[in-house]
């Protein structure tokens, strides 16, 4: 009886489990901030209030993506990768007196592989800003541009002077 249990254990440990592991779908997503890890909009003259501030291709994100199945071949059911963005907070909050700005004050654009994507008005819900079909060892740079108060509907005239902060979360994942 003991030997039977032992054999069953050994069978699952050395046959079934390695098979399960070798047959799995390997998805690897990695995102690194190459530059532009701290975004600052400084409204220091009236022209900036009137026209807004844009930071062109300010943040560079290096993306890695791999979606394979057994034997390291591209996952036939894979659809590629997606880069998403959202605000961690519900609004852009000031340091003083509870001042807040709407998230819609900020718009985000992406530049990848010679193409422009967006603008995307910031919300606290993930928005896909760039996608790619690559499955095998994708390694690319996406450049992010930011606009703050550039639209007539979201300019910052008459907003209270303060230092307003929020956190942007970029997510690299399968589509």
């Amino acid at each position: 009886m003991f030997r039977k249990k032992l054999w069953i254990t050994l069978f699952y440990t050395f046959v079934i489990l390695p098979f399960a592991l070798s047959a799995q779908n390997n998805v690897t997503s990695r995102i690194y901030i190459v530059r532009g890890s701290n975004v600052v909009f400084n409204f220091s003259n009236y022209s900036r209030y009137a026209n807004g501030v844009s930071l062109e291709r300010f943040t560079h994100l290096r993306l890695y993506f791999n979606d394979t199945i057994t034997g390291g071949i591209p996952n036939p059911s894979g659809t590629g990768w997606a880069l998403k963005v959202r605000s961690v907070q519900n609004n852009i909050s000031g340091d003083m007196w509870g001042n807040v700005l709407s998230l819609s004050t900020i718009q985000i654009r992406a530049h990848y592989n010679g193409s422009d994507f967006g603008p995307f008005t910031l919300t606290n819900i993930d928005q896909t800003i760039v996608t790619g079909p690559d499955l095998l060892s994708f390694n690319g740079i996406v450049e992010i541009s930011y606009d703050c108060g550039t639209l007539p509907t979201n300019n910052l005239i008459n907003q209270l002077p303060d230092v307003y902060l929020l956190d942007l979360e970029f997510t690299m994942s399968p589509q």
Partner: protein
Amino acid sequence: MKKLIFTLAGLVAFVSIIAQPVSDNAVIPVSVTLNSILRLNVVSGGNIEFVVNTLDQYENGIANTTRYTTTFTVASSIDFDVDLYAQDAQLIGSGSSSNTMPLNNIGYVLEATGTGTVSATGNYSLAGGNVSPSALQALSSSITEIISSIPVPAGAGGAGDVNQNRFEIQWELGTQTPPLNSTSLLRQSLTADRYTTNVFLVLRPRE
């Protein structure tokens, strides 16, 4: 039975490993610094000097001309008001400080000469009225709000650049037009002297 349990356990582990997508995140802090922009610039007419040297001028005063006009601009990121007041309660003689002249011999009219509008639904009111040029005002050492932004939604707000917010203060002396001193300079028997005071223009955020 045990075989069945092991098989199911292996299957569950297999499926769960397959179904698990992997994602990665990066967080970038964003700051928006709004510096207060409140700038008032006297473009011309920063030193107004009336010279009374004829009897007609003593009797009827000196009306406004471009020579007696102060032009200033405002650039502001928020709605604003502008106050005006004289430093002294009276004009003080340079030759002798005992020589004084009542401030209300000097009057001024305000006019908005930029693209901003003066009306109840416009950008601002001038000296409490919604017309440009304003009614004549007598100079006073009391703080007088001469420009008042009309905030949105009632008005269009005063926040704007120097092209929008350009104003003139059109000075006059001894014209006896109400509310100025109704007695002519001649009848006041003022001692000949050079009478001066400073007039302050104070730009402040709309309250």
